[in-house]
């Protein structure tokens, strides 16, 4: 009996200590969970000053991490920044709550092109934050051919100097696009063809990598690699080193257009405050400052106009402002539903083959 009491007391102490650590202040604490290096952190201070709220800012590195966290119910987040297909999946899994747009008047500044996207058709849950493409980051000294087609990733002249993205959707999407199919194909024959060319490509590439691609290209370890447009922008904006030998090409076959958007998870306890935060980020001045600091393209029309006046040269860069034709042929990833498993299996087979 004594043992049980001791155990009970111990648990009680543990729980009070833990509860005390989180709830020691009566200020509302807003939990914001974002990609790494994806916000101008001085804006967080500004938001805290303006509203008197406290922001607890944390970062993650993949949509899958975020999904896994939300799905397992671990942690309570108020604003998170998933990408298009992840938003679709979160909506399907009922992990998000609808945003009350009356509290987000600044939504009017969002480009109409980026409202009601396929991942959130009635635009109930999400507000676009940044958008961009995937493309080919290359070293101008090592690549003599024009980088305007996915075929170059299969070009034997560059054997051993090609880096492929270690991501099922990107790898499969590129192979499908090269073959002239949709990046969201659910046709078994097309997927089989895509698998074949990925297996063929395997002997030509240096390897499959994630975030390392940017550094490896900048370091001259490889001639070209598949990355996000933002990776190029990071190098472009770098003030400490000269990366003018690095280029970024978007294939004429079209590519993936990605969107990261702000959403409010279902288990958020501070919905109104979360909406205040979203509205704050949409304020043209703040969006301008944020886009300037992070380097990605903002969907905020007024902020974009400010950037056009401030630094018109970035609109010449395909990484910042892809040309209309490429955009027209590009696709946003959609949630594959049942086919997700098939994509994963094909990708696994390609990698083990």
């Amino acid at each position: 009996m004594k043992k049980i009491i001791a155990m009970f007391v111990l648990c009680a102490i543990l729980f009070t200590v833990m509860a005390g650590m989180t709830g020691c202040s009566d200020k509302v604490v807003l939990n914001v969970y974002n990609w790494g290096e994806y916000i101008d952190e001085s804006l967080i201070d500004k938001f805290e000053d303006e509203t008197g709220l406290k922001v607890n800012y944390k970062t993650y590195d993949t949509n899958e991490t975020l999904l896994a966290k939300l799905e397992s119910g671990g942690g309570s987040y108020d604003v998170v920044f998933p990408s298009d297909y992840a938003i679709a999946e979160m909506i399907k899994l009922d992990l998000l709550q609808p945003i009350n747009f009356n509290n987000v008047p600044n939504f009017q500044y969002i480009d109409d092109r980026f409202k009601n996207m396929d991942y959130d058709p009635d635009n109930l849950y999400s507000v676009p934050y940044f958008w961009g493409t995937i493309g080919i980051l290359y070293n101008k000294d090592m690549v003599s051919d024009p980088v305007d087609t996915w075929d170059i990733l299969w070009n034997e002249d560059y054997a051993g100097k090609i880096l492929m993205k270690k991501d099922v959707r990107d790898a499969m999407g590129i192979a499908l696009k090269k073959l002239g199919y949709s990046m969201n194909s659910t046709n078994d024959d097309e997927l089989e063809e895509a698998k074949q060319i990925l297996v063929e490509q395997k002997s030509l590439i240096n390897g499959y990598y994630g975030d390392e691609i940017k550094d490896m290209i900048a370091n001259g370890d490889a001639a070209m690699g598949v990355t996000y447009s933002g990776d190029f922008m990071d190098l472009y904006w770098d003030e400490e080193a000269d990366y003018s030998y690095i280029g970024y090409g978007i294939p004429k076959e079209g590519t993936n257009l990605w969107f990261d958007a702000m959403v409010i998870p279902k288990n958020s306890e501070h919905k109104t405050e979360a909406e205040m935060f979203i509205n704050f980020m949409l304020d043209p001045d703040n969006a301008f400052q944020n886009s300037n600091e992070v380097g990605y393209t903002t969907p905020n029309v007024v902020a974009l106009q400010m950037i056009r006046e401030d630094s018109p040269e970035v609109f010449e860069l395909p990484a910042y402002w892809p040309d209309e034709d490429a955009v027209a042929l590009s696709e946003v990833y959609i949630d594959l539903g049942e086919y997700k498993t098939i994509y994963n299996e094909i990708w696994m087979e390609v990698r083990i083959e």
Partner: protein
Amino acid sequence: MRRRMKLLAYPYTFWMAVFVIVPLMLVFLYSITKGDIHNFSSLEFSLDSYKRVAEPLYLKVIGNSFFLALISTVFCFLLGYPVAMIIARTDQKFRNKLLMFIIIPMWMNFLLRTYAWMAILSPNGVLNRFLATIGLTPLEIMPGQIAVLIGMVYNFLPFMILPIYTVLVKIDRSLLEAADDLGANKVKTFFRVIFPLSIPGVVSGITMVFMPAVSTFVISGLLGGGKTPLIGDLIEQQFMSDRNWHFGSSLSIILMVMILISMAVMSRMDRNSDKKGSSA
């Protein structure tokens, strides 16, 4: 007094129950079921994920992981034993300093050290630039199995050296003198006295290297260019990107069982050597 000691064990028992036993049970549960992982009532008994592990594709990955882990354990042993012996033989004044050289790199994060190897071995990395300046042809090590092996041996070597050293340093000098008195030369002394006495250290060294080596996923991803995934990569992918917890769990269970079997084999060897030691 005794009761108080028991009381002190409660936090640990609590900790073990919540963070070791419960998760293990969950992994086991997920491995033998299918259905929605967040809704226990929807789980149905199924061995589908184990069947999937048995597909040749995945057996190949498991085989490859064990092979690489084995090779790196052998290398760690071949490199680590002499080092442990040198340190154990060194004068006490310098011994701790030598040990520091082994331990200090371990203060740095494991991921960081692997990135450092990437910077050294990559096609345009430190090593190849150096070779180019002295007029030699660059090596194509990374990405590849050799680079993965280098990364593994580097990262796990201290786990081989330290337990062997601990055993060697405790060997009673008078035993060596006795061997010498009885006319054994150095080679004979090593194989008949020192090595048998150091077996417990060797066994724990091998276990401590083999276990992390067989389940690693960062090293093969970075230094191997992700072209030959290991079982650790497979498990990571199931939980992080594919979110197929059932398949991930059965892979983990298989890995755990295999590690347990290898540990059992090792400890049997250990016990046999004990028996031999006492009967001799």
